[in-house]
């Protein structure tokens, strides 16, 4: 390989056919005179602009006729000609400098074009150089060169992560991998499971219970997940009424009065709430508005007056203390009910965290735009993060995540995208240049992911995510079930 050209942060390297290189791989440009090396990442592979190549192609494509031919080449010059004709231009981004084994992000120097030696840099040695090693390793899978890629659980701690990519590329899979790894290290995890995909997290592929079985708790709203009004804070109920059920302000004021009087009587039940609204002497519109919201709450099936039926989230979270996951299965829940449930969960979470009953929680939210209200997004990356909610957004619609969230994201696990619009949205991530994102993500195979951010010390790395011994189910409902 030879250095060819540098423009800004982009370096072009001339590669030859004998050197197997794929997008995403790293190169080390060693300048023997200066004792330092430039770390490059290949982000695109193009045909080198060889003189005469067009002629060559034209010559060899004589119409559509098939011309058989042979070459008598006793001196064996032909391989040298193909070597030239198959030369490739590796478009690379400068990722930093290595000096005496010490990495730095500086790239304010230029290695010698004639003296430099360029070789492949394995992901393992790249990450080793970058000091990505830890007491709490998470094995993500392997790099192109089959070396295993391990990230540090510490670098997920307190962080905001995004997992994104097309459908069926393996987003939920890597999320499960992260969830299980976090459980291994004793962390509490909450999963907002839109499609009920995480419900078998405690079962192996063959359906047997695994070591995680006891650590995974599945909550299905309206079924095994019901709460009493008494457990619920007025603020939470008001949030539900405002945000999920669009209750106007005047009616909310009336509701607050009702709530307070019930609370004073120690009679916070759904039945009494319904009665109070019906018997309330107030503006007819207000009463109607309250009544319809009341029935929405009733219909959600999430609230119960039966103490036996209700669960205590406080207890559920307690069970997570030494590592465990609470899976909120939102699969059979309507849009409005989803919002009610999520509103409840998040406020309960904050409550427990502020009371220091929980140290911190890793929250995984699949397709959050379908249930997370507008104002929560900023809240999640600022206030809630401060309280100890460390969120991972998982989505196949990157444009539903706002730009400022991308900017604040510490880690991005990026799977394949082919749609320009989607790529555009992701490429706003501040952690890496748009060109890298677009070029590499466009060609990622399923189950391969471009990891960006702190977990890889800002060296973007392509990982083939390892398989998990977890039963998968429930992603797609099919009509033809007899065949796969």
């Amino acid at each position: 390989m030879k250095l060819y050209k540098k423009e800004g942060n982009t370096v072009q390297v001339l590669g030859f056919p004998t050197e197997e290189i794929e997008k995403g791989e790293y190169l080390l440009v060693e300048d023997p005179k200066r004792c330092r090396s430039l770390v490059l990442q290949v982000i695109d592979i193009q045909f080198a602009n060889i003189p005469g190549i067009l002629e060559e192609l034209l010559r060899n494509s004589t119409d559509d006729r098939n011309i058989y031919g042979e070459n008598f080449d006793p001196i064996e010059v032909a391989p040298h000609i193909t070597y030239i004709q198959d030369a490739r231009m590796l478009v690379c981004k400068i990722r930093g400098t290595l000096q005496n084994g010490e990495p730095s992000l500086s790239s304010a120097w230029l290695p010698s074009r004639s003296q430099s030696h360029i070789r492949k840099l394995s992901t393992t040695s790249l990450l080793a150089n970058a000091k990505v090693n830890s007491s709490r390793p998470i094995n993500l899978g392997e790099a192109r060169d089959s070396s295993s890629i391990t990230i540090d659980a510490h670098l997920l701690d307190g962080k905001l992560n995004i997992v994104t990519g097309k459908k069926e590329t393996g987003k939920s899979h890597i999320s499960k991998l992260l969830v299980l790894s976090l459980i291994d290290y004793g962390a509490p995890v909450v999963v907002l499971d839109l499609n009920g995909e995480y419900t078998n997290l405690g079962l192996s592929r063959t359906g047997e219970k695994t070591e995680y079985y006891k650590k995974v708790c599945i909550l299905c709203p309206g079924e095994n997940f019901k709460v009493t009004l008494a457990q619920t804070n007025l603020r939470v109920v008001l949030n539900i009424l405002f945000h999920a059920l669009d209750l106007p302000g005047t009616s909310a004021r009336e509701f607050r009065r009702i709530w307070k009087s019930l609370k004073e009587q120690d009679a916070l039940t759904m039945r009494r709430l319904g009665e109070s609204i019906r018997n309330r002497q107030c503006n007819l519109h207000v009463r109607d508005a309250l009544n319809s919201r009341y029935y929405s709450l009733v219909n959600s099936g999430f609230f119960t007056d039966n103490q036996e039926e209700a669960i205590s989230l406080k207890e559920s979270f307690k069970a997570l203390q030494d590592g465990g996951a609470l899976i909120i299965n939102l699969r059979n829940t309507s849009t409005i009910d989803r919002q009610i449930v999520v509103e409840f969960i998040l406020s309960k979470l904050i409550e427990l965290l502020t009371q220091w009953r929980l140290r911190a929680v890793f929250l995984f939210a699949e397709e959050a735009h379908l249930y997370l209200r507008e104002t929560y997004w900023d809240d999640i990356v600022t206030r809630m993060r401060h309280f100890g909610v460390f969120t991972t957004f998982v989505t196949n619609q990157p444009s539903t995540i706002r730009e400022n969230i991308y900017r604040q994201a510490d880690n991005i696990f990026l799977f394949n995208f082919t749609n320009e619009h989607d790529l555009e949205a992701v490429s706003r991530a501040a952690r890496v240049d748009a060109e890298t994102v677009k070029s590499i993500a466009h060609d990622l195979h399923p189950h391969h992911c471009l990891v960006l951010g702190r977990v890889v010390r800002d060296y973007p790395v392509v990982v083939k995510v390892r398989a998990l011994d977890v039963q998968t189910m429930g992603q797609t409902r099919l009509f033809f079930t007899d065949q796969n």
Partner: protein
Amino acid sequence: MIGQLPFTATPRYNFPTEYQNLQLPHNFIELSLRSMRKLDGECLVPAAISLSDSVESHPSLYAPSPSNYESQSLRSIPLKPSQQPATIIAIDVSNIKLGETDSGLLIAIRAAVVWMRNRQYRYLRLGPFPFHITEQNKQKICHLFRAHNFQTSPNSQITPKLTDTHNRISNLLECWLQMNISTRSQDSIVLWDGSLTAGTPDNPMQFLSKLLETARNRLNRILAFAKTTTLRIGNQVLTDLTTETPSPCLIQVKSIPLNPSTPLRFLGNIYVTRFARSNCSFRLDIDKNLPIEEGIAAVEQLLGNDMLYQGYPETLRLAHIYSTFTASEVIGIQRFIAQTHGLRIIMRPNLRRLLFGPFGKGVDA
């Protein structure tokens, strides 16, 4: 006399059986290799790649200017393409200058033979063969070649200038191929690139007439097409001649008076082709000793069998295409020599030009 090569040649099952073991004289490859043996450590200043470099060193360029001309000496011959199946074989050889070394000139030669039968084309490429021509070895190269091809005494010829040697070598290779094809094939139409003018250092009378005779004896008909010609009739270039006869047709040039002092001889009847309605014309030479009708019939068979592109036979066009060098091939060959023979390629700035600008006079031209 054809020495077998020590090199393994894959059997060419796709080729007509008579050519399956068509191989080059051992000497040729040996010469190529030997000429490069002394290259170790030498520097090569690559030639500016101009692709027309590889074009035409054909005898037609040497042709003389006739002094007078009468219009009666032209005859138009209308042609009727004949579908009668024929094998068409075309031969072409190209050479290119790779650059200058400390001691000489580095060139490469490649030959191509294309067969057409039942509208199916097949090609065989021979080469590329790099040669390092120096003042020391140019004589040897030419002698060996001549000895091989002409079986005449090596001393009978003057050696060419260094800069002509590469044209000479490629001419010799071409002659060798032409001879080989003439002997191996039967009842075929053989297309050459060039003319049937003899008497140049490259094309001695004796050899060319022997070649034509061999071909005739085996019922082959040789049609030599020249893309360019310096032949003129009066003050008109031959290929600019016009006719009322609708295409396809030939214009026979019955006589071109030759300057008595010239050693040149036309061994063919000279025609101008008008195969397509477009005004692409070529000079066509057909063996004089072949009955005229037979020659015309061969052209009609060519028209009925081969395709034409801009009035030029496709088989010959392919032979040309397969033998010429592209820029990337030139770089590949330079790389080959650098890697296998220790040649160092340098981009020597032209000092004279740097100092004096493009007006510097003298040896550097």
